[in-house]
């Protein structure tokens, strides 16, 4: 470790990119903060294999996600983002840890708190901000909005507004993977609020019945909109709810624990069928930007978690403890990230709104439904109401 440090000192001003490229990939073994708890399954070991490169990239990516969500907060208050805006800050470790354990061929499907997962799957800041502001170069051409981010090429299936409706869809993704026999898995993400939906249990039953490669990830941030989990669920051990499906409880604020659990889950799902992962995590913002987030929980609770369990801080401390970078280098990285985000926002603000004609495109695959053509499709016969 000392060698790496000396080597870094020899370089000219270290930009975070260079920091990453020069960092080694030699393995480091780190223990997770808490042991895993298993239900009907032996939990994986607490010690996780990682590398300096991975830790530095975790830091960078999580800081980027954090910065993006904070920027989205200000944009919403400036009325550039309208409607609903559900922010993910505090939960970044889940997105990052999951990405580290899987490939782009595996599918992820989630509900409306999807900005950071989109970024993790390879979405760009520009696409994200343009979509949030309803501009035409957004990832869904400005027609989806905050709750409808998708990226088909990277296996990110969105982005769904109705609580719990994405779970049967995820079951379908896993079914298609089993049908094409392609050794990939689907991560179906939902929250502690959605965990009480009937469709979850229907989907669980079907996934277990047909051994679908499905991993159900419950992002338990302890509040279903404004209702605390103990007021909504008789049994808040969401990982045990599967009964015949094994479950694992993971500290969702520790990116390394998440990575370990997802790797373990992927191996399990490919061999033995579905498994539930409960990520114990927390969101700093309210449910959405319309919710102050302080009427059902105390500010002390929020700042307490921020001090003790914040995912970005944890990685920062790990990096410093293992001498992978200096304080100053990490601060520089954060400054760079801030600049990157600001630039993306500035560029996104320049992008125009979608063309009015776009109102009617993509309703049907071939554009029918608005104009009825003659039998030979050559003349416009009538415009349908």
């Amino acid at each position: 470790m000392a060698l790496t440090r000396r080597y870094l000192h020899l370089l000219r001003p270290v930009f975070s990119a260079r920091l990453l490229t020069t960092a080694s990939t030699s393995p480091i073994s780190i223990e997770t903060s808490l042991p895993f708890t298993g239900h009907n399954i032996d939990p994986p070991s607490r010690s996780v294999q990682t590398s300096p490169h991975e830790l530095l990239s975790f830091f960078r990516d999580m800081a980027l996600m954090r910065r993006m969500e904070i920027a989205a907060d200000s944009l919403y208050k400036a009325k550039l983002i309208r409607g609903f805006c559900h922010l993910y800050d505090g939960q970044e470790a889940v997105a990052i840890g999951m990405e580290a354990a899987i490939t782009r061929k595996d599918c992820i499907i989630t509900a409306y708190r999807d900005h950071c997962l989109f970024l993790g799957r390879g979405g760009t800041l520009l696409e994200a901000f343009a979509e949030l502001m309803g501009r035409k170069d957004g990832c869904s051409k400005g027609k989806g909005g905050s709750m409808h981010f998708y990226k088909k090429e990277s296996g990110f299936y969105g982005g769904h507004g109705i609580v719990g409706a994405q779970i049967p869809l995820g079951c379908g993704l896993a079914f298609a993977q089993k049908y094409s026999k392609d050794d990939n898995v689907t991560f179906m993400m939902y929250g502690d609020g959605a965990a009480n939906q009937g469709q979850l249990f229907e989907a669980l039953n079907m996934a277990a019945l047909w051994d679908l490669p499905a991993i159900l990830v419950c992002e338990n941030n302890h509040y279903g909109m404004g209702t605390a989990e103990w007021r909504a669920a008789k049994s808040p051990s969401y990982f045990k709810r599967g009964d015949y499906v094994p479950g694992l409880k993971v500290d969702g604020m520790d990116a390394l624990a998440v990575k370990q659990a997802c790797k373990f889950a992927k191996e399990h799902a490919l061999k033995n069928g579905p498994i539930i992962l409960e990520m114990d995590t927390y969101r700093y913002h309210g449910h959405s930007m319309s919710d102050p987030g302080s009427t059902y929980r105390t500010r002390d609770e929020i700042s307490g978690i921020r001090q003790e369990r914040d995912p970005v801080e944890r990685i920062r401390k790990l990096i410093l403890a293992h001498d992978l970078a200096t304080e100053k280098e990490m601060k520089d990285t954060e400054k760079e990230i801030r600049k990157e985000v600001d630039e993306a926002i500035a560029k996104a603000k320049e992008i125009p709104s979608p063309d009015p004609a776009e109102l009617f495109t993509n309703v049907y695959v071939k554009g029918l439904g608005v104009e009825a053509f003659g039998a030979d499709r050559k003349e416009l016969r009538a415009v349908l109401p």
Partner: protein
Amino acid sequence: MAAALLHGVGSTTPLSSVNYNNSRRSLPGYVVHERKRASFLIQCYGSLLPGSKIGINRAAKLSTNAVTTKQDNVTASTTSKPGHELLLFEALREGLEEEMERDPRVCVMGEDVGHYGGSYKVTKGLADKYGDLRVLDTPIAENSFTGMGIGAAMTGLRPIVEGMNMGFLLLAFNQISNNCGMLHYTSGGQFEIPIVIRGPGGVGRQLGAEHSQRLESYFQSIPGIQMVACSTPYNAKGLMKAAIRSDNPVILFEHVLLYNLKERVPDEEYVLNLEEAEMVRMGEHVTILTYSRMRYHVMQAAKTLVNKGYDPEVIDIRSLKPFDLHTIGNSVKKTHRVVIVEECMRTGGIGASLTASINEHFHDYLDAPIVCLSSQDVPTPYAGTLEDWTVVQPAQIVATVEQLCQ
């Protein structure tokens, strides 16, 4: 435009070769395969074949199955073609099987479709042939297995979701409306949902209120879906195949009482146009628009009307969303009077939308207000006599036409 009556035997030969030549003039989006298609009929009055996306090996089935005397028999329009007789559910099965054979991505899911063979025998024998994963028996969880079908469609599979009775699909309304209909739009075109949702609906024989649902009126506002209703074995098979090949989500409405209708269908492969209406009987005095089971009530009434000296034009609209305003419009321009006979309820039904649509576009051509005969706005009662009074009967149709034509 003399759209010929393609009902049953013998009339197809010359028209189909004409159609074939028309369609060969490379209409946008239509892919023509030369010699392999020699015996492939496009029975669509010269219209475009929807969703002809290839990528699957189509060479095999066609040449071995098709009757190759097609081209030789151009002049023999009076000799009856062989064809084969099928009941409507068998026609659906034949269409389904041909599509499953043709494209390995086509799969079926629903309750009792596999080992049991389908509650109306539409999928009988398919599980033995294609395996349990491809013809999937689901638990009784409509919301989830419809959602599962939609999720599978997002990745490129072409599932057919069967609702044992259409009414049960009300449980899956969220999935059908928000995910099935809207995902293509909200993802900016990234995901296509080539799913077919089908099942029997309509008023049966004393099945009770909950099992006599007509969902076409509930689903008609959902943007992004297409709805078709089949009424004869011939159009059932053609529409089934067209729906499977379409890249849009299609809801295919069948009727519980029509499954045992028998008709002769062509031996050759044929696909119908999803957006097109069918001219059942040409006439001069009044246009009667109908679909599904009411077609038969209308035809029965038509017999009586003809005896009384009237000449009704009967159109089976088939496409419930979008309406084929071209065929309908031409008919309205000819007859200037419209009667709509449907089985869904009066309030907010297909007839209501169709009335509004025709009034909007063809108001100048109407000599009288449009009359819409629909089922009563009541839950379908169990008692047989009451149930008969819920739906439109031929006598009412006759009386209405007489009054309209004065």
